[in-house]
């Protein structure tokens, strides 16, 4: 059994407009994927594609008007969607940890960093305070914070962005999680710091045998740090597979356009680019959401595209999967 199994997850934003009419934004539509223990899965897609929302739906971190409509999330044998809030709380921060973008706003500004690390350990593992402190020192060392003894008493505002992100990672590791969700962990950091943080995360997954989900819009990160990739568009995974497979032979027109738009592949002044706007989630086109912008679209695309296997573990949601001209 896989560590994480997500089946047909649907998350919608249900609200009422000014005329008291119900409005539904179909933000996630039938998201399904599995993640094996120790593997790294990279989620890519543009703003509003549903990457972060997928993570939040898995962890039960949604706030109204967002709501999981249907679907099942099985983590390590537990059904998270059916779990009582207290049990879920016990799991989050312990078995499932999260590292988010913007580390400075995720730290408590009024608590020294060592105390924040101790706090999360006490909340889940309990035990003597001294043991939590020792663990905190170990984790600060593991994430490469220089001189952890002195830095332990620092306040969050005294840390650079890169250091704050390391503290957040140390915090995520305190309870030895089986799954780490890193939501844009390096956006806003400089490239050299980004490389350090990503190298660190990769190293830690290997050292502790953690599985990791990296959410990013940077294909370069996915190309070098994940085993598998899931490409999201308009709340659906349109293509998923091993990284080398997908980059070598992208099967979905959207994946192709994304890869073609990376600086390495981009030919200025040449090549067809995906024009148009992201679809309106309140009013998604029937069938394939890309069809209004896709150069290959035909009448059949108004019906839901089937999930088609095009290679080993490589799935594409497109009517023309495998038949597109290369």
């Amino acid at each position, binding site marked *: 059994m896989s560590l994480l199994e997500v089946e047909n997850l649907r998350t919608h934003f249900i609200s009422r407009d000014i005329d008291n009419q119900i409005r539904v934004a179909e933000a996630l539509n039938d998201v399904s994927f599995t993640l094996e223990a120790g593997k790294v899965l990279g989620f890519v897609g*543009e*703003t509003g594609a549903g990457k972060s929302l997928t993570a939040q739906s898995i962890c039960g971190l949604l706030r109204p008007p967002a709501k999981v409509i249907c679907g099942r999330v099985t983590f390590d044998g537990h059904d998270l969607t059916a779990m009582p809030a207290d049990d879920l709380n016990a799991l989050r921060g312990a078995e499932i940890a999260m590292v988010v973008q913007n580390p400075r706003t995720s730290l408590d500004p009024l608590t020294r960093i060592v105390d924040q690390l101790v706090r999360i350990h006490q909340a889940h593992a309990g035990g003597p305070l001294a043991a939590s402190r020792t663990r905190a020192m170990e984790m600060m060392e593991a994430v490469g914070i*220089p001189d952890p003894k002195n830095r332990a008493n620092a306040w969050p505002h005294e840390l*650079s962005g*890169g*250091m704050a992100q390391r503290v957040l990672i140390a915090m995520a590791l305190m309870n030895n999680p089986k799954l780490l969700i890193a939501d844009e962990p390096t956006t806003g950091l*400089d*490239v*050299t710091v*980004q*490389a*350090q943080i*990503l*190298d*660190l995360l*990769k*190293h830690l997954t290997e050292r502790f045998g953690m599985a990791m989900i990296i959410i990013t*819009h*940077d*294909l*370069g*990160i*996915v*190309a*070098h740090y994940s085993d598998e990739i899931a490409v999201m568009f308009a709340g659906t995974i349109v293509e998923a597979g091993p*990284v*080398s497979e997908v*980059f070598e032979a992208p099967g979905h027109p959207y994946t192709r*356009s*994304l*890869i*073609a*738009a*990376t*600086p*390495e*592949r*981009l030919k*200025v*002044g040449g090549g067809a*680019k*995906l*024009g148009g*706007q992201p679809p309106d989630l309140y009013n998604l086109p029937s069938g394939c959401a890309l069809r209004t912008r896709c150069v290959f679209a035909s009448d059949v695309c108004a019906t839901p595209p089937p999930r088609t296997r095009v290679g080993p573990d490589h799935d594409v949601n497109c009517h023309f999967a495998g038949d597109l001209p290369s």
Partner: protein
Amino acid sequence: MTAPVLTVEKLVKRFPAGRSGLFVNAVNSVDLSIAPGETLGMVGESGSGKSTIGRAILRLTEPTEGKITFDGRDITRIPDREIRPLRRDMQMVFQDPWSALNPRMRIGDLIAETMKLHLDLSKTERENRTVRLAERVHLRPEYLRRYSSDLSGGQLQRVCIARAIATNPKLIVLDEPTSSLDLSVRAEILDLLAEIREQSRAAMLFISHDLGTVRLISDRIVVLYLGAVVETAPGEALFADPAHPYSQSLLSAHLPADPEAKLSRHLLVGEIPSPINLPSGCTFHTRCPVAIGACRNEVPGAERIGDAEHYANCLRIAEGGNRIKPTEAA
């Protein structure tokens, strides 16, 4: 070679650091020049002085020392009233198109605004040119009557670009013009900029922290560290053979979107020093893996590499000790 459209010599910009009497040394003796029609990329991490240099060139901030020559004229100290007519020939595109445009003006009026300020055109002529400009930046004419809140980020950046090219400037400074945009939108904007470069032959200063983007659009690239130029090179030469230890490290941190690409890592230790208290000699010596004693005291000059227009400021180039040994990527 034709006379450069812009020359910057020994540019220094210091900001007072609060009331402490100390100064933030944002830009430290920067030399650069841009030829007509050339696109110069400028890369560096946050705090390296990229944006400050761009703003000083446009006189949006007063240079502390140094000399800026634009189109043969020394503009370093010209009074404010002479700056505005100058902006006709030097325009800017900013990172965040949402805050760069007046939300209460229609798109058409926003594009016409620069022409109204700088060009003596009749209303009809101006309107005709607005429509043509919208066409050039691939903006549908019906958007001209709308407001900025109706447009997406990519479309707004097109409006900003239309404003910048409306007066046929000789130089356009672009400060992270694609950083706030999604990948496929970014590709469209880069396409548009390349097209405009071909059509107008305006020189461009392209400021970005994204190495891939800079490589794609620039003829030459300048690498900055702590407010100083450490290397200048044609794009391909820089990526193929970075000479300065900082450039080597910066480029090794770049992640090409290709899983097959080999990464060789020589990441730096430590953090970027405070620009209030700059290290002596070569400002990079505190983090440089190949620094020697002399690097502490001596400020390195630009050293020519090969026969291309490739220069790097490092003392160790002469004896070939500037290469960092790569370590395996994680």
